[in-house]
């Protein structure tokens, strides 16, 4: 039973929301697609097949995969310790986890420069061992690690909390060793949280721009990632190259996030 006023209220709210989403999200998305296709599919393929562009995308992919691997290992450990252990400073640490979410990527890159750059604190040590971090891939991986720190931990913590420990206790009672319990009981329970955290990490890592630009320097063919290429191409007015790379990168991370969503829904 809806009153006439209720119907109008619904119409107005839906119209406002539809207009907002169209102007803010759908229309810009559509114009990126038309912008990329402005000179036909051939131009897109030609732009994306330039060696610099390909190497930029590969670099992005490697950095992102490495980041994900590190977070699977350490992120799980951190989530575990924060949920299962009680120690002084735990709640402060718990709050700090969210910090990278709000810290500007530029500041992240800058902090790493202060540590590893030419006047950096750790520069003498690095030079002694002949390792380059700033303006090189290791620094870019570190920057991406910082920026994506919360995702895996924040996905896993509620899962670990809800899972409790009864099943693990049961397994231990039945004679399972620590390793066995971890592999056969705990890890399977975490898998969906882990998958979701992993996809969010991956999507964020693929799209990271400011932090890798500052610490990597964006040297063409050496420390240029996909996002840095998009930026450079736009500045150099190579619009088709910029728009099509942006489209590919957007589709890539969209596919990853949607794919994980689909998998999760299927399981349920």
């Amino acid at each position: 039973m809806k009153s006439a006023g209720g119907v109008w209220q619904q119409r107005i709210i839906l119209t406002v929301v539809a207009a907002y989403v169209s102007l803010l999200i759908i229309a810009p998305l559509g114009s990126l697609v038309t912008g990329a296709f402005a000179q036909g599919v051939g131009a897109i393929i030609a732009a994306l097949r330039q060696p610099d562009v390909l190497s930029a995308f590969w670099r992005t992919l490697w950095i992102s995969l490495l980041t994900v691997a590190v977070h699977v290992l350490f992120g799980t450990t951190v989530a575990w310790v924060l949920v299962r252990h009680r120690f002084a400073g735990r709640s402060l640490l718990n709050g700090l986890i969210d910090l990278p979410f709000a810290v500007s990527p530029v500041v992240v890159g800058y902090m790493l420069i202060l540590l590893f750059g030419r006047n950096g604190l750790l520069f003498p040590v690095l030079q002694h061992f002949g390792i380059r971090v700033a303006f090189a891939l290791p620094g870019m991986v570190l920057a991406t690690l910082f920026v994506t720190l919360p995702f895996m931990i924040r996905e896993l913590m509620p899962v670990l909390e809800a899972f409790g420990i009864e099943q693990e206790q049961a397994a231990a009672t039945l004679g399972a060793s620590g390793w066995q319990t971890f592999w056969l009981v705990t890890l399977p329970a975490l898998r969906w949280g882990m998958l979701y955290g992993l996809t969010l990490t991956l999507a964020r890592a693929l799209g990271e721009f400011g932090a890798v630009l500052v610490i990597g320097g964006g040297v063409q063919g050496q420390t240029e990632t996909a996002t840095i290429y998009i930026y450079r191409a736009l500045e150099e007015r190579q619009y088709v190259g910029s728009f099509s790379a942006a489209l590919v990168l957007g589709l890539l991370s969209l596919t990853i996030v949607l794919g994980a969503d689909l998998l999760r829904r299927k399981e349920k």
Partner: protein
Amino acid sequence: MTVAEAPARGADGNFRAGVKLPWGRWGARAVALSYLTVMLIVPLVVILQDGLRLGLGGLWRAISAPVAWHALGLTLWTSALMALINAVMGTLTAYALVRYEFPGKRLLNAVVDLPLAIPTLVTGVMLVVLYGPQEALGGWLQNTLGWRIIFAPPGIVLALLFVTYPFVVRTVQPVLLGLDRDQEEVAETLGAGAWTVFRRITLPPLALPLASSTLLSFARAIGEFGAIVIVAGNIPLRTQTAAVYVLGQIESDNRMGASAVSIVMLAIAFGLVLLVNALQRRAANRQEESQP
């Protein structure tokens, strides 16, 4: 929190039994703590030390330099305006998604998550392609209505709105879904108008989640770079935001300026994150109280 927790914890608050990670309790704790120290705490300490090397006076001089001061101000007001719009539109969107049935509902639900999956730099590119002064819509807006969007503050607000759209919607939506509608119906039966019902019955339980997600979007906006750097145009004293200012100072080797503004941004981010954490904890406690 969970039922299993109470009896399973020993006197020190640690779990008495249950699985220990293969490398043992202390090993895991050491790994976790050193990881967080290396990743989070060391970089933060280094930047603080760098910004304070000329003392508080030096820090203040660097912050109050006109260009830096303007960049911080611009960042703060555009982020605040964004947060306000996001709070209203996010609540409306969540309300539409929970309370109404309409064609395209699933599409809307999917579009809400889109900004999380799209790189922020790509967001900036998209907005320039649509609203740029040389493009069809952007050119029309500028020539006919005199509205400059790209390379001006409206573009900054638009980019921030895009990036943070899911925050409020996805926080308010589940709370709205869990609300009992009986009270609203009673109020309606007693003759309360739609707005009164919303303000007096529906809004109060949404207040905490709405506040925390709005603050979170504000915190995120303060540091946003990728979406803004293209849209804002980097004109000092006009459209240069704090993050873009820091980049400029790094490139021109002005460490003091970069460190000082970075510290201000970090302090805001840190304060807001702690505040949001506290609000979320309160919201969680309240929910537990209402559902014993």
